[in-house]
């Protein structure tokens, strides 16, 4: 393997190692605070590190990336407020675990799984980059639409309440995501004539409101008391890890694939992985949604594996796999390096150096992730009278800091109240978040697919059946939905009778 000497550079350079450590540490805490996003942090870092050499700059940025994706799970578990979109799914079972006094265990497993997931992502990056990236190129806009629909149908069909309610919230998410200026024609859409809405409703603001504020309101209403945390057994035992290894690997795979698709990242990966876990784990340690450890393993391994996945198109083609890699590419260009096939050819050491940085980041992730868990678990024990107002202030500041606007704060409050109603009436919130994330993907890709079919409905529909990837996705959707319905039982028992 040419250029592999690049791999050794970070390992032999203490300064670089320190930078990576600093990056991971900062990343974890940036990720943990709702309202501070990893993308924002990396953007700031580009200006900050402009005068540095490329390697230390990259080292810090990669560290922040790895730390940040994991960090969101901290507040997700402790406060039911995901610090980053990638941690939305972690809260589903992570927070119930905290409510049972097992926040320490939740954080311990989330750290371990994140580390395993990152390793998996790195492994695929090293071994299969060219194959994965050429496959990623074949995914057409139509396939993206089908994938998005698949995601929504799957997540909706498994929700606790009725599927109708889930679909309604999902649709609301999609619609909310469409408010604002249409990126293709530049025309205002769904904004009721308000210029202020032309920028749309920021996704993070909605997330903070729907998760953060609504949770605070729910706790106020139902007078939830803090639970004493049991922090003896924080590090998960080998038995737990091994028992769930197949699940971890499957979810990491989901993570890498989704991360490698340009335009989709860890947040979608985590939700899909969680859904997959729900479907495939027949006897979870506890029912999903009430503190099943599998419900933390799935999203955490997936969203970290997506990091490695996102680097695949970035390094091989210079195309970002997700939002953070887009900023990283910009960062590299500013230093005079353009990621892509030329860089791989002319300076292959870079690829290996980045791989090494990812590995070292992962090691520090474990170190920093495991330390402080005991201290952090105590946060859940703080009396509600004190922690609730603090959470509210953080939510407000987080929303404000996205685009320096007080209007965003009002939006956050509005969605907080909406989220409160949703939670009271058993409307699942997860589909709404997924709908919001997928909204631009569905809309733009649908219109691209239409344009590619020369705006001809016939061409559009036949295209779905002539393209291998599209057919596979459609089959997948059909099978998954069928397996939920009553007919499946009939078919299955029919089969069993035949083969008895």
């Amino acid at each position, binding site marked *: 393997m040419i250029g592999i000497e690049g791999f050794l550079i970070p390992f032999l350079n203490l300064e670089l190692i320190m930078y990576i450590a600093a990056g991971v540490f900062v990343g974890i805490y940036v990720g943990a605070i709702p309202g501070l996003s990893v993308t924002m942090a990396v953007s700031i870092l580009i200006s900050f590190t402009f005068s540095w050499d490329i390697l230390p700059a990259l080292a810090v940025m990669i560290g922040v990336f790895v730390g940040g994706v994991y960090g969101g799970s901290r507040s997700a578990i402790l406060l039911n407020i995901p610090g980053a979109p990638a941690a939305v799914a972690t809260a589903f079972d992570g927070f119930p675990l905290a409510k049972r006094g097992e926040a320490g265990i939740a954080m311990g497993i989330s750290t371990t799984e994140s580390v395993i997931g990152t390793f998996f992502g790195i492994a695929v990056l090293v071994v299969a980059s060219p194959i994965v990236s050429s496959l990623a190129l074949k995914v057409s806009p139509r396939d993206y639409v089908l994938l998005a629909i698949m995601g929504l149908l799957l997540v909706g069909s498994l929700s606790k309440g009725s599927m109708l309610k889930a679909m*309604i919230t999902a649709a609301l998410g999609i*619609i909310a995501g469409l408010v604002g200026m249409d990126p293709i024609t530049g025309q205002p859409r769904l904004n009721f004539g308000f210029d202020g809405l032309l920028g749309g409703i920021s996704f993070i603001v909605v997330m903070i409101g729907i998760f953060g504020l609504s949770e605070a309101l729910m706790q*106020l209403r139902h007078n939830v008391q803090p639970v004493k945390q049991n922090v003896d057994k924080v590090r998960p035992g080998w038995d737990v890890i091994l028992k769930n290894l197949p699940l971890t690997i499957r979810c990491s795979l989901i993570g890498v694939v989704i991360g490698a698709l340009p335009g989709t990242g860890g947040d979608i990966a985590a939700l899909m992985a969680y859904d997959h876990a729900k479907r495939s784990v*027949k006897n979870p340690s506890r029912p999903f949604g009430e503190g099943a450890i599998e419900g933390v393993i799935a999203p955490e391994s997936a969203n970290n594996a997506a990091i490695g996945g996102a680097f695949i198109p970035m390094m091989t083609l210079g195309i970002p796999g997700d939002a953070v890699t887009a900023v990283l590419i910009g960062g590299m260009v500013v230093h005079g390096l353009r990621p892509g096939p030329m860089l791989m050819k002319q300076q292959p050491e870079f690829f290996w150096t980045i791989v090494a940085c990812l590995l070292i980041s992962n090691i520090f992730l474990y170190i920093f992730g495991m330390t402080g868990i005991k201290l952090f678990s105590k946060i859940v024990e703080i*009396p509600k009278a004190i922690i609730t*107002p603090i959470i509210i202030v953080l939510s407000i500041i987080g929303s*404000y800091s996205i685009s320096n606007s*007080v209007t965003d704060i009002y939006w956050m409050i509005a969605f907080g109240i909406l989220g409160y109603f949703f939670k*009271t009436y058993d409307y699942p919130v997860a589909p709404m978040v997924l709908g919001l994330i997928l909204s631009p993907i569905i809309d733009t890709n649908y219109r691209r697919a239409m344009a590619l079919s020369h705006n001809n409905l016939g061409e559009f529909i036949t295209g779905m059946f002539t393209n291998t990837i599209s057919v596979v996705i459609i089959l997948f959707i059909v099978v998954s939905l069928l397996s939920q319905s009553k007919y499946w039982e009939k078919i299955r028992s029919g089969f069993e009778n035949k083969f008895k």
Partner: protein
Amino acid sequence: MSAKDKEMKQAAQSVQNPGELYFLLILFSVFALFFYEASKQNGLLQGELGGPGVIPQLMIGASLIMIVLLFLQFRKNHYKESYINDVIKTLFSKDLVAILGTVVLYALLLESLKFILTSSLFLFFSMALLDRKKFGHKLMISLATVAMIVLIFRYIFQVVLP
């Protein structure tokens, strides 16, 4: 899904919370408003397949249908709506309303009184509201929190605060 999950799903579908029908009505009106707004864009209603209005019209239209279906499901399970009093009692508690009020006040005053003052006031008042003791303690915590936030957001991350 496991048997336990299916059971839970069944159970969840037959519980009704007071105010659910009212909420459904509100949802319907909101979606109807959106549909009106979406009809202004070029989409399916105008016969265009690739326009900006297609997905909005499709989604909103589908949602309206789903809300109606949900309503029918409620009828099938013989839901009866409770009185407004019950609804209010279920949804709101004194603490909740008080805090909500202070939050809105916070947002309104933020621009004029600036961050440090408004946040400290908000923190102190809401903490005191929820637990009427140890005021000095709470004052210290409020100020310390605000200090930490200013440190982290303004100086380290260079984020502008109001």
